């Protein structure tokens, strides 16, 4: 099934405010899903007979912010954070990309991590991928069974793949920079 057919199928089940009016064009086109509904949409695409997206290939966060003033002029995105879900079906051998768009900070209050519902109840591997996205990009996954850092130590401060991340000068007496 191609992505247009999948989107049409999703529109039968969900409203336009959930899965958008159209797919987003790119080399790998994607469907934008409202954050609140990602668990329902995920469960639907996993269990639907014609979709069967039983395999979550990847889940990662991307921080859209261009702190470099020279590059900022050509940068076309408003500051935001994306959670990208790469899905594939083992039996039907097709692929799908979903995205959830979040603000960089919840309620625009710096320090409040944006919140996305966890899909770890839908695909087992989302547990670890979401921990990594929390650790490196700083996204809070609601309903996650073990919401802790995975690559960095637990007392690490900040989220390294945020574009405005400042490298620490010192960590437990080890000098950085």
């Amino acid at each position: 099934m191609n992505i247009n057919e999948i989107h049409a199928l999703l529109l039968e089940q969900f409203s336009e405010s959930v899965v958008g009016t159209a797919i987003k064009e790119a080399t790998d086109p994607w469907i934008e899903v409202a954050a609140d509904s990602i668990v329902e949409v995920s469960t639907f695409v996993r269990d639907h007979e014609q979709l069967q997206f039983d395999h979550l290939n990847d889940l990662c966060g991307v921080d859209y912010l261009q702190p470099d003033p020279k590059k900022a002029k050509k940068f076309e995105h408003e500051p935001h954070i994306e959670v990208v879900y790469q899905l594939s079906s083992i039996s039907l051998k097709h692929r799908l990309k979903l995205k959830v768009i979040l603000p960089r900070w919840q309620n625009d209050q710096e320090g409040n991590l944006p919140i996305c519902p966890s899909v770890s109840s839908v695909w087992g591997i989302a547990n670890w991928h979401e921990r990594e996205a929390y650790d490196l990009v700083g996204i809070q996954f609601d309903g996650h069974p073990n919401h802790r850092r995975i690559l960095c130590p637990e007392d690490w401060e900040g989220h390294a793949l945020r574009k405005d991340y400042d490298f620490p000068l010192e960590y437990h007496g080890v000098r950085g920079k």
Partner: protein
Amino acid sequence: MSMQIEDPRVVEFDVQTDEMLVNMGPQHPSTHGVLRLLLRTDGEIVHECTPHIGYLHRCAEKIGENLSAPQWVPYTDRMDYLAAMNMNLGFSLAVEKMVGMKVNEKVRHLRVLIAELGRIASHLVAMGTYGLDLGTFSPFLYAFREREIILDLFEEACGARLTCSYLTPGGATHDLPENIELPDGLAALTGMEPGGQYPFVDVIEIFLKHLEERIKEYHILLTRNAIFIKRTAGIGVLTPETAISYGCTGPVLRGSGVDYDLRRDGEDIYTRMYADYNYDVISAPFKDAPREAELGDNWCRFFVRMLEVVQAIRLVRQAIPNYLAAEGTHKESFKLNTKLPKDEVYLETECPRGQMGFYIVGDGNAEPFRARAKSSCFCNLSVSDILCEGVPLADVPAVVGSLDVVMGEIDR
């Protein structure tokens, strides 16, 4: 890590022993690098296994945002350092997909040849170190002796043995050499006169012929060995449903009986490489498996790798004449500062350990806006807590070893 003592999954034994927390790693030799496993045990039985990773985290993704695509290729080497060629290939293809580049036939067959040699080398290490995990030393030495020849061949091709950075966006850094000196190791193994000059592809063929015979010995030494079967068959059973849900890929997925290989089922840009090549996708169950073996156990995962070596030999044999007959150069132009379009691509390729994915977001600069490496071992390791539940302590290395993880790739 919860420290509670009450456990709903109480194992019925005559003697109730105290629960104990056993820390295994991060410098434990059978954890394949710097993996730390925290085990909650009741006597000999493991109740809970919590893997702790990140000891080898080197911020590869953050570094990738500051380097252009060809400059990041060496960093992909250092992720899965036992299959550097396959990692290079995966990233190069993702970049080529992004800029819409089509490589010529010569590059295509060269890549198949090199990638499958890399697969053989990687599976040889997997086999040898798995023997080490189970307490047998000799298969390790045999495996490394054979792998050494492949590293010699890589050295002749690109100058590096382990971190090759050979396959880059656009092709490869050098063409394959025409004549090389017979590697000393191969001369010693085959009884040929050392120091002779042979065409590069002939040396590969001499090596493959030698390796084919050795694989029979490996089967006697390990696969069909009664002790080995006792340690692996029926232990660490991973059901296909769990394997799929936990994103397991590669030999771990196929060992659970799921017939899925990206070389056949992947995206066009990757399957095109293997078009008109003949090979079989290996997946469990096996007709000639020992009686004790179950679908998805340690033995099946191991046997998938062993049979994949045979298929890789077939592929290399087909790639050699294809490569020699193909027209074109070994590299299409891809400059160091080639700008990436405002676009994003995701591509997975079949590396020896599973499906390695690269997600690249471009913003019009040469450096990607986001360079994400999705690791196959990361997903494969995430089932270790399920597999280790209820196994004896001594079987933990047997289970984790059968997943064949490389920490460099997990931690990036």
